């Protein structure tokens, strides 16, 4: 539990439009806290505890811009187990899936939720890809999958600032450097420019000297 959620309750409150939204959030968080205390029950596949309804409805009650932060607060408050988290992700809209990914560092110790990160990295939705490469991926994604995640960001235009612990994980990664150099060569061959981020992460590997002269 090293990671704090991206925003505190006070930050979110300050951003909400009005007292109606704040009152809604109060109630939703209380429902979530109640769920955290309740004994775990096997959920039937299609009925949801009411904090889960709040989780789905966060956008229309708090505004689309605040929905990620509100959903993350709800998840941290409700402390769902892995089964519930997985179900929330699998049955979620893209926005709900993003919130689950963002809450992983606060909710899951160890690599048991990596399948959710893998799922998000298989999509081409940049909102999901950028949420997938946060601190949880930095801590638990294996080397091969992590390198492909970095490459996918470059391919889909996700800024590498989204990749948590980029410098730490890239340092000394000769295989990542090779993949980056090959990708740069492919771009050059197609007459396309080389993304600035590619050069940046290549420098971070410390293996830049491998880079062929003509690039």
């Amino acid at each position, binding site marked *: 539990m090293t990671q704090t959620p991206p925003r505190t309750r006070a930050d979110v409150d300050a951003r909400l439009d009005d007292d109606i939204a704040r009152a809604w959030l109060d109630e939703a968080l209380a429902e979530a806290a109640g769920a955290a205390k309740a004994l775990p029950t096997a959920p039937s596949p299609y009925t949801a505890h009411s904090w889960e309804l709040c989780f*789905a409805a966060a*956008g229309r009650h708090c505004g689309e811009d605040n929905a990620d932060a509100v959903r993350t607060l709800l998840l941290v408050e409700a402390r769902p187990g892995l089964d519930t988290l997985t179900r929330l992700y699998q049955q979620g*809209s*893209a926005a709900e899936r993003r919130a689950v990914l963002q809450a992983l560092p606060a909710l899951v110790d160890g690599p048991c939720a990596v399948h959710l990160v893998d799922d998000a990295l298989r999509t081409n939705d*940049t909102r999901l890809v950028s949420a997938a490469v946060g601190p949880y991926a930095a801590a638990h994604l294996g080397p091969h999958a992590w390198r492909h995640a970095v490459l996918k960001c*470059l391919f*889909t*235009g996700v800024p590498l600032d989204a990749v948590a612990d980029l410098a730490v994980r890239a340092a000394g990664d000769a295989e990542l450097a090779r993949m980056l150099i090959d990708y740069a060569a492919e771009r050059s061959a197609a007459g396309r420019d080389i993304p600035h981020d590619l050069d940046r992460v290549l420098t971070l590997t410390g293996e830049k000297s491998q880079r062929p002269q003509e690039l």
Partner: protein
Amino acid sequence: MRIFDPHVHMTSRTTDDYEAMYAAGVRALVEPSFWLGQPRTSPASFFDYFDALLGWEPFRAAQYGIAHHCTVALNPKEANDPRCTPVLDALPRYLVKDSVVAVGEIGYDSMTPAEDTALAAQLQLAADHGLPALVHTPHRDKRAGLRRTVDVVRESNLSMERVLLDHLNETTVKHAIDSGCWLGFSIYPDTKMDEDRMVRILRTYGTEKVLVNSAADWGRSDPLKTRKVGDAMLAAGFTEDDVDQVLWRNPVSFYGLSGRLQLDVPKPESLHEGNSVLRSGE
């Protein structure tokens, strides 16, 4: 001209269509769930489809500066297949999603007992979830179908002001107006309904509660028909304000009944070349 296409199946369209729609003035659309041409044989196929309407398709639309909402339902055609009817039990978990702005398309296809059951159940779901309903009227036996549809809606717990009757034409418009429902017209490249006939209907019955859509899908159809109706209205002497009412304010009012419309989408200029839809091969 700002345009809201209240009924278009973008899953079946290309990014060229999105680009052309944006250029024509389309800034928002609603994608109703319907059948895909090829019949589905299990509920899981529907769930993947609904997930796409709540995930990938809004993402694609946003790349082109268009706000994407959807309606979710078991369509009347597939309501007749017992392998698909369990979808009805799963609808509640989709109807709570932020971008679901109505239950739909529901209604009649062949007017069977199974369609009666699905229509009544889904009108009730709309009432339970505070959502309006998009009701498809049948293409075959249209007049009788419309009358039966209106009767079922009237018996339901959903008020007529929260129902949009779609695919109307000259033979059904009068009865639809008398019902108090919203009026939807789908404009096709062939004989079902065209822009000049639409203009004549607007002249006769006015612009109040009228929505015009392209209903574009995998069949012969044209996602720019909304714009063509706007142009035909102006050519026929309607004002810019009349056009705005039909092509923007009426759909915003109808789907706004859900309390879930979010119409601000960043302009596509802010997107860059590296975006993942423009780029193939990833």
